[in-house]
């Protein structure tokens, strides 16, 4: 119980730091924050209005508390290029991004966990060397470059997947309640839309997953190797357990736990990395929104994305940690 409370307290503290960082980014910028916040084409009136709104004439501490209040109410200001409340923009852009990240995460887990386990078991073998080289190579690929190449080769030339967008032209009017196309299409029984959406997701998800999978394999491998060295594996073998039983019943549950913490963190990092992928594949999402906001010099839009990604990061970690605690409460008491 104390662990849960401590963990939640830590998340709240993190949230506070997150607000602080957002505040620093939007208020302590070089030059006149109001001028930056107003966007390039704003007149003097508009700037004055924003200055008052941001409370820039007041002391920094007061400004911070005004900002804190705004953020807690979900008020990130209005985007000067979409002319909508930024919160509303984000709410629209978030589901496609989350969808992308979830698919990428599935790819990551499906590859990392078994490959990590197997390379740990055959540590030092040819197979292990090969996987290590491939994962190092994967970690060296610039995501945006891979994305462009995949788009040009696999989609445009080989026509295996759609080149861009979220849905094909004929499904452009498809709408659902949740905004998650995969989910909505299933709920409405529209399998054609589901597979269309999935096809559009494959390449961007793959491009996004590559780097994270390369890291995921290595993390899993390291974690599993340290488990294989423990005496309980020797005891299990001495009991006459087959290698399969040793691997899946004994090593895997223990080795997956620390790896899962890393995967929890990767969730947030992936969401942040959508900025490199979504725009290339012409997918809506907070990544593309952030890039657009940057090019349009909409600082509040950018900061809002930073905040939301950070928030998801915190929540994902909290969920993973609490989940691990629920599975095995005792493990946390020692560390």
């Amino acid at each position, binding site marked *: 119980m104390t662990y849960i409370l401590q963990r939640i307290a830590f998340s709240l503290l993190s949230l506070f730091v997150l607000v602080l960082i957002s505040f620093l980014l939007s208020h302590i910028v070089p030059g006149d924050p109001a001028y930056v916040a107003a966007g390039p084409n704003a007149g003097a009136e508009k700037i004055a209005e924003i200055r008052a709104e941001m409370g820039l004439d007041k002391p920094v501490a007061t400004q911070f508390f005004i900002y804190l209040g705004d953020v807690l109410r979900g008020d990130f200001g209005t985007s000067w290029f979409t002319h909508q409340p930024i919160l509303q923009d984000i709410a629209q852009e978030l589901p496609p991004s989350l969808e992308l990240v979830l698919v990428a995460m599935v790819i990551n887990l499906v590859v990392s966990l078994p490959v990590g386990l197997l390379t740990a078991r055959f540590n030092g073998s040819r197979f292990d060397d090969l996987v290590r080289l491939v994962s190092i190579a994967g970690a060296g690929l610039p995501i945006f470059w891979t994305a462009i190449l995949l788009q040009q080769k696999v989609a445009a030339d080989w026509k295996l997947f759609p080149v861009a967008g979220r849905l094909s032209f004929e499904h452009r009017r498809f709408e659902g309640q949740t905004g998650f196309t995969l989910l909505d299409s299933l709920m409405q029984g529209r399998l054609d839309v589901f597979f269309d959406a999935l096809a559009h997701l494959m390449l961007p998800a793959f491009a996004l997953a590559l780097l994270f999978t390369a890291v995921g394999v290595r993390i899993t491998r390291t974690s599993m190797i340290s488990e294989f060295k423990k*005496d309980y594996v*020797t*005891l299990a073998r001495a*009991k*006459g357990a087959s290698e399969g039983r040793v691997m899946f*019943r004994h090593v895997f549950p223990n080795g997956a736990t620390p790896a899962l913490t890393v995967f929890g963190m990767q969730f947030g990092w992936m969401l942040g990395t959508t900025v490199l992928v979504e725009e290339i594949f012409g997918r809506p999402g907070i990544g593309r929104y952030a890039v657009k906001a940057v090019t349009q010099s909409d600082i509040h839009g950018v900061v809002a994305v930073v905040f939301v990604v950070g928030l998801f990061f915190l929540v994902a970690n909290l969920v993973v940690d609490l989940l691990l605690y629920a599975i095995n409460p005792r493990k946390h008491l020692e560390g």
Partner: protein
Amino acid sequence: MMTAPAPEMTTETDPAMTPLLDLSDVTIALRQNDRKMVTGVSLSVMPREVFGIVGESGSGKTLFTRTVFGLHEDTYLAGGTVRFNGRALPLNGYRRAIKKMLGKEIGYIPQDPYSSLNPSMRVGRQLTEALYLSKGYPMRSQKAQDAAVALLAEVGIPEPELAFRQYPDQFSGGMRQRIVIAIALSQDPELMIADEPTTALDAFTQRRIMDLILERSRTRGLAVLLISHNLELLRQSVDRLGVLYGGQLLNVAATADIGAREIHPYTQALFDCVPGRDKRLADIASIPGEPVGAGFGTTGCAFAGRCAFAQDICRSAPLVTNTDRGTGFSACVLGKGARHG
């Protein structure tokens, strides 16, 4: 403390009996570069015998044990014969053959009770798994559960029903080692290997766990192979003692002979180092120099460089071969400590 009515200690087993475990001229090498780590070891463990193996760190005792019982991945049996109950195991595919016997004829107790139980698996399940693997009891069956609880009671775990449902980290080191012993016993082995079973424990627990191992094996009629670096512990616990040095088996001595008659110079020197109960400071005689590690490919006797009796012949002549079955032997070329001569 557990003190069962002990049957009479047998220091000398009947040489006509078939040894339970019989190694002759066993050589162990590293998979990576074929370097020979342990050379020409011959020894036999008789049924119901408690056999000890002693060696300083680097002597190769852990490597030797783990390889012979198929628990070491980086080494292999490069030569010699291993017989279990008179049946020879093939040298090719040795590891596969011996692994089939693990959990059936052979039980194993690892060194560190803090890591030898799976932390995320309930104690009961680790026992029923062992029962399933050796006897085919379905893991969730009442039969397996009852047997597991009975075993926990047998090794002296208070409230065995409760322990059955708990996780390993809810137990102290001594209790965990009892659970490990219960797991090994559950499979009704004929030979139990205990690899430094009490090194991680304090003096009281050490004594209790050793008593438990000896008492249970005596009652159940098991042979025990006890690996340790603690000479006094071995002297008080085992019938015969094999002494490893630099990857060579230099001596097999009946513990009753220690201090009573001449034994191999290295074994004698080791016992002279131990600050035993009735010794004075002046009685302690150290061995000069540093121990030779296993795998350095020494010709002749590995101990020659530190031995007080060493002559030129010791550095070149091959060691005396062990041909005994259940008695003793000294590998000394000079005949020191040889039983007949």
